[in-house]
């Protein structure tokens, strides 16, 4: 099973098996819900990891795109009479367009400056969502019409488990596809040495922008999926804390590791559920665990584990 994780289809197969088998161990629908949350977050994290782990650019405002996706499927059907699926696609389109327009100037910035600029973008989106209450319900959020496909209504936590699981598989496949392609290599090249990438003919601004747009569309899709699943949206989904959560999933799981993003999302979603037994110390413990794991697993959980396994075999 470990050897399989080195091949693209091996990873997909293992993931598919995990998704298929996991429900056998679920004692209640609550578990379906938590697992779906993991799949959705992992999906967004995988996209962000293409930007951060492959292309080496940071975004501290990525929940902004998540929020756009979420509110697209909320506002579209309710206020504009657009079917959910069309609203979802419009959300992706809007996110891609915004990423393109915002990314052009800000991706020329580096390091901290880029971090602050993307943070600003995220804050702005959250602000618009909170203040335009006529459309968005303001700070209280709004309810989302159920997804209906040809008369079939998608509801129930087990249904959404399979939908989000399928989505995660597709997102994983796309992200893994990039590896052995000119685009994927260009991302990694500009991460390692922007100057060398430029003199080998790579238009670094174009590729940074592509990575940013890809990550934005991933986040938007994840936002739409979560909103449709929950039947409800609120501004927190576009908020700064959620952006930080997404970045944490990527870094904790392992920058550049697709599998890492899934593991990172699983840890960050499940840990608080487990830690609720500690009541008021929950957040304190969560923070401590993240700090300690970053100290001892600087490269992230999955790269560290794979190194450990290889070391033992050698």
């Amino acid at each position, binding site marked *: 099973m470990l050897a399989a994780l080195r091949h693209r289809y091996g990873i997909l197969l293992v993931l598919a098996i995990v998704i298929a088998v996991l429900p056998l161990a679920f004692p209640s629908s609550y578990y379906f819900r938590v697992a779906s949350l993991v799949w959705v977050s992992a999906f967004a994290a995988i996209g962000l990891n293409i930007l951060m782990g492959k292309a080496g650019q940071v975004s501290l405002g990525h929940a902004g795109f998540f929020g756009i996706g979420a509110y697209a499927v909320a506002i579209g059907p309710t206020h504009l009479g657009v079917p959910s699926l069309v609203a979802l696609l419009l959300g992706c389109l809007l996110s891609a367009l915004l990423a393109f327009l915002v990314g052009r100037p800000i991706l020329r910035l580096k390091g901290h400056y880029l971090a602050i600029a993307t943070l600003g973008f995220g804050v702005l989106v959250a602000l618009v969502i909170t203040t335009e209450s006529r459309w968005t319900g303001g700070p209280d959020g709004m309810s989302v019409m159920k997804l209906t496909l040809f008369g079939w209504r998608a509801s129930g936590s087990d249904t959404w488990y399979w939908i989000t699981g399928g989505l995660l598989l597709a997102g994983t496949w*796309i992200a893994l*596809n*990039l590896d052995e*392609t*000119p685009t994927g290599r260009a991302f990694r090249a500009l991460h390692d040495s922007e100057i060398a990438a430029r*003199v080998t*003919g790579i*238009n670094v601004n174009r590729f940074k922008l592509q990575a940013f747009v890809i990550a934005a569309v991933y986040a938007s899709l994840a936002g739409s999926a979560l909103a449709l699943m929950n039947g409800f949206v609120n501004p927190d989904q576009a908020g700064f804390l959620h952006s930080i959560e997404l970045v944490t999933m990527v870094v904790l799981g392992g920058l550049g590791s697709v599998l890492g993003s899934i593991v990172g999302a699983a840890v960050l979603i499940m840990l608080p559920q487990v830690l609720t037994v500690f009541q008021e110390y929950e957040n304190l413990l969560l923070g401590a665990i993240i700090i300690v794991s970053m100290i001892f697993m600087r490269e992230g959980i999955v790269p560290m584990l794979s190194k450990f396994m290889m070391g033992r075999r050698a």
Partner: protein
Amino acid sequence: MTILKVDDIGISFGGLKAIDGVGFSVEAGQIFSIIGPNGAGKTTLFNVISGIYEASEGRIELAGQDVTRFAPDVLAARGLSRTFQNLQIFQRMTAIENVMVGRHLQEKCNLFADLFRLPSVTRQNKETRAAALAFLDEVGLRDHADTPAGALSYGACKRLEIARALAAEPRVLLLDEPAAGCNSVETEEIDRLICRVAAKGIAVVLVEHDMKLVMKISDRILALERGRPLIEGSPGEVRANPAVLEAYLGKHGAREAARA
């Protein structure tokens, strides 16, 4: 045929002229060396020619066309390749992946085809890998194809950079101290490699401190001092000018050059 023509180039940093009135031209298949003491402006000149710095004065022509102040990636597309004095390797990629990046301009790159890894992408990838392997072979790194670049020795990294630059099939290749930090065996390999490259019709512009190497393989040599051209001529002419050499290579360098 003149392929690279640099005319009266100047650039300053905070009022200090790092390059001033430097000009030369290189023909296809020629090995043109630029020498000078530390801080003479050799690397800065390369940075200007390859578009990393913008010249404040002067004009650069590539294959007869004005390319002054063009971006590095545009210059690359026009046939300019280079290596770096301070290694600029893609550390987290394998050796062969580094060279495959060098093939970027030879590859078709379509985002959607890549996201879905269409059969055409897989096919092209195979071709790119085969081509990259040939370039690795050229620099003697075939056996290290799948080694992470970060784990290669310094000398191997130097050669990997040359392979990556050659993979772009350039018309002009700028080499910034390719033999620095290499032992005598490695230096000899690089010497032969440069000659092979030039024999293919590529114009090689070489910056190198190893005077023995420079005197042996150069067709012409330009000597810089504090950003200004001192003399340009054949190795014989430069060597026969001990007073000038001494001025910026020091007594030791002059002796070494005279012996070479």
